């Protein structure tokens, strides 16, 4: 049994996420080189989803968990690899929303489907965080949100939680040891080649925190790095957790947005639903969404959206997914 308690370690100053201005520049450069737009607000406006989150509850976590029941919160992280956890939660959001959308992939023209993932793999969040962490560039713990976004769009892609016997790696369940496999030097070409099959196409940096809700409403996952800390208690009515005076050098994912009128009336601004990677028991309190029968995942909490203005937020676009499985029947079986 691991003695790593992430809540304790981050409180003590573990640096899981940090800022590196050079990495920020490299991300912008990479986005531009691949034809993307590094300015999130501009993306929302250009692609006409600005304001999409207005006046409603965006329960993105619910959409993901309908496709992958039980996928969140997953096990607690067992080392300082929070950035890769947050990154993969955002990637799972973008990819799953694409699956639900059902439209052909904009690059390949193929309708993508939901591949088989074992129940164990789903319980460990469907896609591997370790496969991203291999690209952090040094042997120790900690990464930047920018470098992670660059890695998932250029090198690591998304890896399903399953065994890869040809590569001699089993990613079915989360392992801190597997997460630490590379780092100081890049993974071998065989790993890069595999990862490149399922890259996230592009990413963007969101400076205006209000745009985060619009990205979620449009089906794009968002994650962030910050030095903010939050209370372990969710309030009784809203599942709300305020920030505290503490400090966590930490990354988390945004998985919901509440901009309903009653929320604005109570809080003066939308609430953002944050999903932490410390397992289901690091916090406690009400999880039911105010006025709804829905609940947020264990380990998640609502917080004021304005705190995201103090975070570095990154949104991920669509993913080069998997081709849809063949139709097993054409609808008559079992109906006539």
């Amino acid at each position, binding site marked *: 049994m691991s003695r790593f308690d992430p809540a304790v370690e981050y409180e003590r100053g573990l640096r899981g996420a940090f800022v590196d201005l050079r990495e920020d520049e490299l991300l912008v450069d990479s986005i531009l080189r691949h034809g993307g737009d590094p300015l999130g607000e501009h993306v929302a406006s250009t692609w006409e989803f600005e304001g999409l989150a207005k006046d409603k509850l965006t329960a993105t976590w619910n959409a993901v968990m309908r496709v992958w029941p039980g996928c969140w919160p997953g096990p607690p992280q067992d080392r300082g690899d929070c950035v890769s956890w947050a990154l993969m939660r955002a990637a799972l959001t973008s990819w799953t929303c694409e699956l639900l959308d*059902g*439209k*052909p992939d904009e690059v390949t023209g193929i*309708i993508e*489907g939901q591949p088989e993932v074992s129940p164990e793999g789903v319980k460990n969040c469907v896609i591997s965080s370790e496969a991203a962490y291999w690209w952090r560039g040094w042997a120790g713990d900690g990464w930047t949100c920018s470098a992670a976004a660059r890695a998932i769009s250029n090198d690591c892609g998304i890896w399903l939680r399953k065994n890869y016997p040809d590569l001699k790696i089993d990613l079915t369940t989360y392992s801190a040891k597997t997460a630490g496999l590379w780092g100081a030097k890049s993974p071998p070409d065989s790993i890069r080649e595999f990862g490149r099959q399922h890259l996230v196409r592009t990413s963007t940096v969101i400076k205006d925190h209000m745009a985060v809700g619009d990205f979620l409403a449009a089906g794009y996952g968002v994650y962030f790095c910050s030095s903010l800390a939050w209370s372990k208690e969710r309030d009784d009515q809203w599942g709300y957790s305020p920030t505290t005076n503490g400090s966590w050098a930490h990354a988390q994912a945004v998985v919901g947005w509440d901009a309903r009128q009653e929320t604005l009336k109570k809080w003066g601004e939308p609430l953002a639903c944050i999903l932490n990677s410390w397992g289901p028991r690091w916090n406690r309190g009400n999880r039911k969404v105010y006025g709804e029968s829905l609940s947020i995942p264990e380990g998640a909490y609502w917080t004021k959206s304005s705190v995201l203005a103090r975070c570095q937020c990154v949104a991920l676009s669509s993913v080069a997914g998997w081709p*849809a*499985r*063949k*139709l097993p*029947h*054409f*609808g*008559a*079986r*079992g*109906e*006539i």
Partner: protein
Amino acid sequence: MSPTVRYIVAAALLLFAWKGSTLEIPWPPEKTTIDTPAPPRELLAWAEQLRPIAARMLPKDRIYLENLYDAMVYVLMRDGKRPDPIISDTAKFVTFHTSTLRLAIDKESVGKYPGLAEAIDEVFFLAAGPDVKPIDTDTRAKLIAACGVLSWTLGVHRDE
């Protein structure tokens, strides 16, 4: 003769007088059928598996399904005319077909004709293939043709 019967006889006499001396209602009734053209032979081949099963079905069930798949032809055609078709890929078609049957067929009647479901699905597989794919003009035409083949083959006496 009661007053009511007198009125009926009077009405009948007036009818004969007005229409002439001969009654133009054929007796015995002639067999009148309104029929649609058969699909091409190569498309009817999709229903090879269905034909013997249809031959064993009750006429009322055949007519019911004939009309159902005839209606599906029109739904698919109309959907194709929309600027943004609702049934935009084959997976959505499966959902549409499943839901239609679920609403149209009594639960107690499911399985009444062994092999019928598989034979119906086979027609669509032969028409459109097993891949989940967008419904372009060609695929839509094939699905419409498949519904037409089903409607024709299920029609009474059409299995002969």
